[in-house]
């Protein structure tokens, strides 16, 4: 039988049966290309790579099952209904029947995404795992200017902003934020929610420009999925900490756009306090200040309680409070070591943001690490003249009036502290100085051959020093030795130290070995030279380039193993070597530049 001949009635086989091209799919689904794209985006259907591209390499292939999956999708029907409806609206408008048009427009069927979200992310963890793109996009759209021509309507921007702030509020209040990085592209945040590491990028708080070279409809399609997704995720997260969603917002703070803070999240044990606050909730900046202060004091109080409980000294609080305490403790136990560490970083520190500092990021980051923050302007919890402020964040050339009780630091200090998880010394970050380089927290310097910038080394030293300091902290007395937490920390430190020592040892060993090798090589070279001298006397000559020989020998030895490999493995090895060489080249370039800079300095 000829290979390509297929008798009538016989089904297709192989790739031709499993895959269809895009145009075939369109024909089968009887929808237009834009709708198909939209469906693909919403349903998460991606093209496939068949082993044999039976219709040519320039085609896009989809799996037959995927297309069937789309075919049964109710969204297709809804979109058909929408199309019919739009025709009706158009007709009504053409007949100047504006009322009908309006009524029809109100009744346009809306596709519902929740089922799709559930389908795509059957578990909550799945949704969290793929939240990166969602968050990045929502944050980007929150910073976009609404424009009629680009089809970005105001409502969409507002929703995005609201969702983003809700998310940030959750992260901030539950101290889930782990890393921040100010890059040229924006500010990266990394949070750890339910074991999932979520990284997202927020653009700098400047107006973004929507250029023409992008297809905004595609992005809006994605947004159509991401908006409800983030909504559901937020709901679930708020639900998990026993809060009502959508959270209550403080209208005054919202009006002055004090971003994250306007979303009030009250932990259950604070709820009564806030209810009380709300009862005498009269507009007035002074009052607000006091309110906030009270709130802060409430927070501090709860912290204090916690500390008391840790010392196992049942407080003199009323029984209701004890109940809260119990709740709190259970909550605390659920938190992992990391969260506790993060929560404590800026504890008992008060920050004040100067007028020129971008507020949004700090209102998110500082509370996330346990600090209190205020700013210049309306609705601020406390003013600049507050004596208890420990740090003022200033982003200008020089600071005119200074309070002696506080330190004036540049914004980068906060981020570096957060990344290093210690309070860094402020002298490098003082106003008017060029701050030290801002390093990415996402790089793993432990990797072999990685380039470690100087400042990373200093930070590491500081971290080590800080850990040693932690040990004799007053909070943990001698009697606290049985405190498991304390022990844990101690153990950690011990382990870290041990690790360091081991590393040092290893390094020493390596160095030693190297030395020995050198010695050996030298010896070898000597033997060669001696052989040379012998041979010259007999008349025959020998190679004098012993050093080169040695070099070659080393190369040879590396080459030797390669000979015995199969071809597949050899190619793999070569590819790996190339990529390693490329990496090495990059770090070498950095080292070279560093050397040059150092030379220029000295």
């Amino acid at each position: 039988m000829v290979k390509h001949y297929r008798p009538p009635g016989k089904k297709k086989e192989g790739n031709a049966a499993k895959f269809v091209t895009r145009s075939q799919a369109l024909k089968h689904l009887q929808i237009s290309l834009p709708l198909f794209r939209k469906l693909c985006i919403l349903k998460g259907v991606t093209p496939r790579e068949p082993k044999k591209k039976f219709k040519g390499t320039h085609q896009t292939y989809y799996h037959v099952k995927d297309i069937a999956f789309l075919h049964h999708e109710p969204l297709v029907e809804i979109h058909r209904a929408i199309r019919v409806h739009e025709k009706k609206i158009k007709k009504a408008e053409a007949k100047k029947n504006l009322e009908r048009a309006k009524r029809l427009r109100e009744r346009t069927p809306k596709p519902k995404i929740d089922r799709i979200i559930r389908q795509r992310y059957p578990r909550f963890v799945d949704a969290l795992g793929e939240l990166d793109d969602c968050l990045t996009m929502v944050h980007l759209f929150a910073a976009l200017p609404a424009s009629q021509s680009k089809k970005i309507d105001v409502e969409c921007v507002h929703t995005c902003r609201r969702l983003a702030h809700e998310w940030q509020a959750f992260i901030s209040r539950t101290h889930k934020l782990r890393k921040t990085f100010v890059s040229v592209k924006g500010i990266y945040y990394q949070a750890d929610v339910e074991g999932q590491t979520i990284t997202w990028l927020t653009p700098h708080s400047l107006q973004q420009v929507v250029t023409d070279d992008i297809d905004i409809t595609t992005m809006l399609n994605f947004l159509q999925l991401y908006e409800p997704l983030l909504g559901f995720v937020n709901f679930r997260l708020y639900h998990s900490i026993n809060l009502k969603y959508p959270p209550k917002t403080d209208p005054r703070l919202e009006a002055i756009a004090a971003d994250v803070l306007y979303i009030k999240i009250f932990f259950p044990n604070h709820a009564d306090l806030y209810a009380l606050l709300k009862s005498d909730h009269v507009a007035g900046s002074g009052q607000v200040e006091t309110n906030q202060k009270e709130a802060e004091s409430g927070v501090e109080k709860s912290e204090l309680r916690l500390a008391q409980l840790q010392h196992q000294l049942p407080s003199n609080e009323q029984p209701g409070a004890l109940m809260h305490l119990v709740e709190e403790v259970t909550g605390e136990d659920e938190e992992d070591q990391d969260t506790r560490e993060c929560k404590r970083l800026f504890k008992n520190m008060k920050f004040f943001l100067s007028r020129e500092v971008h507020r949004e990021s700090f209102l998110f980051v500082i509370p996330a690490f346990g600090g209190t923050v205020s700013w210049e302007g309306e609705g601020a919890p406390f003013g600049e003249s507050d004596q208890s402020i420990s740090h003022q964040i200033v982003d200008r050339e020089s600071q005119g009036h200074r309070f002696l009780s506080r330190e004036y630091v540049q914004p980068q200090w906060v981020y570096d502290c957060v990344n290093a998880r210690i309070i860094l010394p402020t002298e490098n970050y003082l106003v008017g100085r060029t701050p030290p380089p801002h390093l990415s927290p996402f790089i793993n310097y432990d990797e072999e051959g990685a380039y470690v910038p100087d400042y990373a080394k200093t930070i590491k030293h500081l971290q080590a020093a800080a850990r040693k300091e932690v040990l004799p902290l007053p909070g943990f007395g001698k009697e606290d030795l049985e405190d498991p937490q304390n022990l844990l920390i101690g153990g950690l430190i011990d382990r870290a130290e041990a690790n360091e020592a081991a590393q040092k040892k290893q390094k020493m060993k390596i160095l030693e070995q190297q030395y020995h090798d050198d010695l050996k090589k030298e010896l070898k070279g000597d033997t060669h030279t001696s052989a040379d001298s012998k041979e010259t006397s007999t008349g025959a000559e020998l190679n004098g380039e012993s050093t080169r020989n040695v070099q070659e020998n080393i190369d040879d030895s590396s080459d030797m193993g390669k000979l015995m490999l199969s071809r597949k493995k050899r190619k793999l090895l070569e590819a790996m070597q190339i990529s390693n060489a490329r990496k090495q080249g990059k770090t070498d370039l950095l080292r070279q530049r560093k050397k040059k800079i150092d030379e220029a300095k000295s």
Partner: protein
Amino acid sequence: MTGKKKATKQNNHEDPSEKFPSPTASDSDSDSDYQDSSTDDDDSSFSPDSQSESEPENGSPENDVSGDSEAGASKDEVHDEDGGNESSDLHQGGAESDSSEDEVAPRNTVGDVPLKWYDDEPHIGYDIKGKKIKKKEKQDKLDSFLANVDDSKSWRKVYDEYNDEVVELTKDEIKLIGRLIKNRAPHADFDPYPDYVDWFKWEDAKHPLSNAPEPKRRFIPSKWEDKRVVQLVRAIRKGLIPFNKPKEEDGPYLLWGDDSGSTEKANHLAYIPAPKRRLPGNDESYNPPLEYIPTQEEINSYQLMYEEDRPKFIPKRFTSMRSIPAYENAMKDCFERCLDLYLCPRVRKKRLNIDPESLKPKLPSRKELKPYPITCYIEYKGHEDAVTSISIEASGQWMASGSSDGTVRIWEVETGRCLRQWEVGEAVSCIAWNPLPDIHILAVSVGQDVLLLNTCLGDEEEQKRIKDLLWVDPSTASDDSGNKAPSVSWLKDDKHEGLRLRHFKTVTTVEWHRKGDYFSTVMPADILFECYKYMIHGPYRKQTVKLVVDYIFVSCFVIGLNGTRGIKCYTRTGFSLTSSLRESRAVLIHQLSKKLTQKLPFKLHGLAVRSTFHPSRSIFFVCTKKSVRVYDLLKTKVIKKLDTGLREASSIAVHPGGDNLIVGSKEGKMCWFDMDLSSKPYKILKCHPKDINNVVFHRSYPLFASCSDDCTAYVFHGMVYSDLNQNPLIVPLEILRGHTSSNGRGILDCKFHPRQPWLFTAGADKLIKLYCH
């Protein structure tokens, strides 16, 4: 009376076709002027002097307008003279009687009856006193026509059938008719849209228009409405009235309420989550360390790179956070990510995150496998051209070398001293010591000859034996080969005090049997070369070129090459290339003691390249370009065919054990055959980038080596275990360098020292090197 008249008028008005002027009589009663005139008309029509004669033509009162007018016109002129005063009277009446129509009495009192009732009567009706009104006499048509023509006013005359008279219409009446025809108000002065004047005075009114009290129903709910509402409510409750109002946007809810049900497996394809974005490194920082910022020259050099090689992102440094500008590509980055997410096929690829070194097989350390040649120990200089072949004497004390400068030299191995030298005239292609330690005979292949040289080593007894061996009886030599023409002639070489075996083709290799009596020579059937050589140097140069070749294309090429004409192909028994190819005359085995030459009694498939003897058994290996054939010489049959899979084999070596052999090829590959295992290579080593010229096994150490045109020689550890279940262990040990390339050739030959783990290499750079451990 009045009512009747009114009825008449009404009738007239209703049926305008009945009488032409009848419309004049119509219209509203209230308006005076016109009404008056019409009554006048009526008055006049009731004039007593109207004739009562009936007219046969106007039988029916419902005559159509045209006929009527015609008839009227005809009657007009008849009664012209008679009705003159009446018409004036009528006008008078019209003028004087203004307001009341009731006063004017109609002349004909017959009432509103069809006039055809009077068709047969001489009268037309009765006047007010009851007297008959006579019909007028009928005029004949001609007269009436003439009168009509004469009378200029005839067009405004109308015949009144009822009163039987002709009426002349006044100017006003004509106008009035015209206006009626135009559907306007008949009277010219009539204003259809008068200003409304509210005659009632509302102010100062003491009493309301209606003083009735508000009815109760205005204050109680409507019973019917109530019923209707109940009806609707019931319908809604029953669901008869659907509310398709758009629902309020329902916000998020607890979508992932319980994750317990999540274990259900989706029935579609496996979902591959999109890879996460690469996390930013230090270079993306707003304030990176200084070394991350490229210099201006580097930035400029990016322009010279290919676009895809160019770095996507160039680090920049800002001294403070307030100076960071908006990132211009934020939208674009996001968009590209979107495109990646929905347009890129997702495939799970395993990423090997392993140390590349771990891919390499675990080999025993090289130190454990010592000794093996490592470094160059001695160089032997003296040859004027590339050293093509070397051979070590069995004791390991002497080394012979042949070069393409036409000399054969013997060296003392340990000192590098050149002991002896022969000038053989032609380039030496191969050289081989007799493997027996007491017979110091050297076989040298020079062009078409194989020389057997006495090296004059050893004591006198040995020398004598050698001389005996090398003595040939010139008379018997040619007869030995029996009935066929000798392929090889054993001759005495006086110059070098040895034997000369003249072959018919260039001999490339000479190989001794382990017992030192037999040796084989290989003449690779390089047809082109041979033909060419034959024609140039052959004994039949003056004759017509007679060639018998298997391949026609070869002969054609020969023609082209030499420009000879008229090639005739003969099958000559005496000299035929065909036979040499078919009967494997490419490989010959010579016996030194008997001065005998044997052909290989097998057919060779392919071109012979090398041949070698089995180290212990009577087995003979012939290496052709593609395969190796193993022959049993005693049984004279093929034992095995080894498929190398190489493009062009160049050398072969047999392991001293005899079960393993290696084949080197011109593409730089080396195949290790385990003959017990398979006819396929056990291992293929791709070590050289260029042609392998020779491969050798060490006789006692588990070593083997290959030398190649890339000026390197590889030394391997090749351990063969006596246990058949254990595969041979091959470990690459050393790469020996030192030779330089000349004319694209590197190391031409390599040989191991028979006892020591030393390797001799002969290079195209006129040098021989000894590598020691």
